[in-house]
């Protein structure tokens, strides 16, 4: 893993806000009486799919990290 610690790998990952969060915020600001168009619904369904997939991917990563073996540091941290 290029000598990087798990935290460094995570920090280096490309990050974006889950699109479902942004869409949920948009929808919550609308009045319920303003009905969504067919296109709006289709778009929302796509976002929901992407958002759910992103959660799954993160969950898979988390499980993989939990399974990884502990690795000793190459130096003694300050204070030890």
């Amino acid at each position: 893993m290029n000598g990087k610690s798990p935290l460094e790998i995570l920090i280096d990952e490309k990050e974006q806000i889950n699109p479902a969060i942004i869409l949920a915020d948009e929808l919550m600001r609308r009045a319920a009486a303003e009905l969504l168009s067919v296109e709006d619904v289709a778009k929302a369904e796509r976002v929901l799919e992407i958002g759910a997939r992103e959660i799954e991917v993160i969950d898979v990563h988390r499980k993989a990290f939990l399974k990884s073996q502990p690795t000793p540091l190459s130096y003694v941290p300050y204070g030890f």
Partner: protein
Amino acid sequence: MSTDATMRSSRLSGNGGTIVSFSDRLLKSLEYLGFKARCHNAAAACDTVARLLAEQQKYVLYKELFPKEWKGSKASFYRAGSYKRYSERVNELFELVNEKCFPFLEYWHDDPETDFERFAIPPLNFDLCCEEIDFDNLRVSYVAGLLFYFRDEEVWDFFSQKYDLSAQDFPKLSRSPHPNVWLEKQQARTKPYRDLIRLVDHSTGNPWLDLTHCEYQELFEWNKETIEMLTTAHQDAGKAFANLEKLDERIDENPRRVLSELISFWNIGRLLSS
């Protein structure tokens, strides 16, 4: 403005004249604050989007199915209705479908906490496997159809008491029906017998007549096609039972002949006289 006056006040929103009461605005604010408190949780956001989409789809359905009622409705989009997971407006849709299309709310849906994303319908036919059937309360033609499915003396006792007919007066019943029984195309004389056997066999293709309490319940989606299909099917189900009236009359006139024809149709797929 006093608090009371504020509570009572309402205003026109920017969405084509829909009146939004103070109470509705307050409920929406509370809902929004609750949402903001957990808005950076992606899983909660997905749930929120899914819930809002399902709600919007029901509003669209309401507007499409009942445009007049939608226009005149004052039901809140935010306050929970009798089914607590849904707004008063969505609850109004449930009531309208129940009242104008087909009755379904009484059936397995008496819990106010019910999740109504999909719904079940009450079977209109008899459960032959476990329902206690009182032959005297059935149409005589339906009891005739039961001869092929119950195969016990009890059904013949009914005909014996009513028409003085017994199993010995007719040919032995085949274990299974002739394949012709299920043919779509039938002569005018055989069609009533085909319809009767399909009805008793729960093979009409109509969900109101084919579903039973015993099997795993089929759940239906909230969309226009499904509601329209179930509405038509509910009317057809009523007609299917009403159509038995003519057969009842024919049995009353000449029970031996009609039962002979019915048994002949079951055994050999045609009427002996034809």
